[in-house]
């Protein structure tokens, strides 16, 4: 009964177009009125729901990414990557993807990566006579890696809600991130050859590459500082995120001399804006999740799913298809916040590793970034490349296909995801 009221209210509010955090809040409130839980817990949980220390890493990583972008770090990454791919057909497209992969190891957000790399690479590609749709598609699909290659904001939120190791998730995301990144490179190369974009004609020049690497040495060392610290167990994710902020200030301000006071102020408000629109959802969803659990919703869902099949592969396939469908309409972090408390007990019941499930969840959200009507990366790339969303969504189709194939491989061979965390002793199974 309570579950019915809860879900009907939630869907009605979402359908009306209320902000997602308020929809969850209203649904919770309405179902509280029908049970005998005291109303005073509302205000208390609004505070305690977000008072979770690991979440502090999210605004810090956003702040660090924003400072890196304004501090000229992105340009230095691109300078180096371009030296590698100049000779290849569609070299600029491949360079965009590689630069996105690199920036993903600094930033934890998908659209943030598209904005950082696309701002510089889309005009560069258009100047060289590349198709605008191709330029937008490569940037938006490369940007999806932002949430898979650690650090990753969705992984932090999943780790907090699912109560599993964020470091383990960060390790598990690395190999799938590289696989999907390389498959994007392959798609970019194949499409460019088909459309005859040609290469820049520049010969590979070791001297120039070394000069560029030396010039950008501090920018290039950023992932080593962030990920090296986390992987080796020296820093917690929160500490690594703060070190990333100060490192960005050092590189952008003292070494590149590009940051001024306004840049820092804008970066701080950027981080606050995303915190206020996304993490507030965690606050209202906490009670929501508790009510679902008290009313045994996950158990009922588990019974329903195992009624269809107890085969591990079939269950994962069903869940992945549902994620694809939801991804068309829902913002990615909201999907994770709402669905994790419902689905996690179900998959645990079937003996599925929570780290493996988290990575699959995050990878399917990569597709959600690219599927209209609500595909956030497409919106950013549209703006940057001046291409209509309809045309852009046709251009990203080969990339979506590549991600879907990778997801199927990853879902059916969990060892690809789990070997690194297992090696470092972070996986449960």
């Amino acid at each position, binding site marked *: 009964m309570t579950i019915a009221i809860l879900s009907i209210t939630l869907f009605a509010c979402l359908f009306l*177009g209320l902000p997602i955090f308020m929809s969850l809040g209203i649904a919770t409130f309405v179902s509280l009125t029908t049970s005998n839980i005291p109303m005073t817990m509302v205000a208390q949980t609004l505070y305690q729901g977000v008072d979770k220390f690991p979440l502090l890493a999210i605004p810090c990583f956003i702040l660090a990414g924003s400072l890196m972008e304004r501090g000229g770090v992105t340009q230095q990454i691109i300078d180096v990557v371009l030296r590698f791919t100049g000779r290849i057909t569609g070299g600029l497209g491949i360079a965009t993807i590689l630069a996105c992969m690199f920036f993903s190891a600094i930033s934890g957000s998908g659209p943030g990566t598209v904005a950082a790399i696309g701002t510089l690479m889309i005009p560069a590609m258009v100047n060289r006579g590349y198709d605008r749709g191709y330029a937008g598609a490569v940037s938006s699909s490369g940007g999806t890696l932002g949430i898979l290659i650690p650090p990753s904001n969705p992984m932090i939120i999943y780790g907090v809600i699912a109560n599993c190791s964020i470091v383990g998730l960060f390790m598990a995301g690395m190999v799938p991130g590289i696989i999907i990144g390389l498959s994007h490179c392959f798609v970019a190369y194949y499409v460019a050859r088909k459309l005859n974009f040609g290469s820049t004609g520049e010969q590979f020049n070791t001297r120039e590459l070394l000069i560029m690497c030396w010039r950008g040495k501090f920018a290039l060392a950023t992932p080593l500082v962030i990920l090296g610290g986390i992987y080796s167990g020296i820093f917690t994710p929160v500490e690594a995120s703060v070190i990333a902020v100060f490192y960005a200030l050092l590189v952008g301000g003292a070494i590149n001399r590009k940051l001024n006071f306004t840049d820092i102020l804008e970066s701080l408000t950027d981080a606050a804006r995303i915190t206020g629109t996304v993490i507030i959802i965690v606050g209202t969803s906490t009670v929501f999740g508790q009510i679902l659990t008290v009313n045994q919703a996950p158990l009922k869902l588990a019974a329903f799913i195992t009624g269809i099949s107890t085969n591990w592969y079939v269950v994962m396939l069903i869940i992945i298809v549902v994620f694809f469908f939801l991804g068309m309409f829902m913002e990615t972090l909201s999907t994770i916040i709402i669905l994790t408390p419902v689905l996690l007990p179900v998959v645990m019941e079937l003996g599925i590793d929570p780290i493996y499930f988290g990575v699959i969840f995050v990878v399917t959200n990569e597709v959600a970034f690219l599927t209209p009507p609500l595909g956030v990366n497409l919106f950013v790339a549209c703006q940057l490349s001046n291409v209509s969303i309809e045309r852009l969504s046709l251009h990203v189709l080969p990339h979506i296909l590549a991600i879907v194939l990778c997801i199927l491989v990853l879902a059916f061979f969990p060892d690809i995801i789990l070997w690194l965390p297992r090696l470092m002793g972070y996986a449960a199974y």
Partner: protein
Amino acid sequence: MWGGIMIRVAISNIYENFEKYFCAFIMAVMVICLGAQVFFRFVLDAALTWSEELSRFAFVWVIYMGASMAAMERVHIRVTVPQLLLPSQYRHYATVFADFIWLIFNLFFAYQGILQLKHMFTFTFTSPAMQWNTAFVYAIIPLGFFLMSFRIVQGYWRDYKRGGIHAMGVDLFSSERSIVEETEK
């Protein structure tokens, strides 16, 4: 005379951007606290007791202040797809209706926050590390929701002054624009 104008400009700047400056300030406090903690732990090999607590307080304040800022900028995350099915000239009415419900519940949450505060001032709780009265920290819940409500009304009031009832909630609609702005800036 110039002094008076300057003061008025400064006041209107703060009135327009209060959350922005405040958020940037608390965010900076949060980062500096965490930075100090890391510095003390790795360089001086000593533990700070207050830094984690203060940074957590700052974090919660950033969330609800940031939510108010986002309400003013109209960038809160919504599912706008069902509204795309409506004819375009009616779309903004749906948004106005949704925001009206949002406003009512905002005020309700703010009221609940005040009840909670009253309770917390009667039975005082102090934070473990800094010995602060936590009621002052929890004050962000009613404060944040009141400010958010104010910014929603303010946005609609501006729409009304600009183009009457038909302009209300018009630019608020396009989810594309808002999300792009949210992520791109």
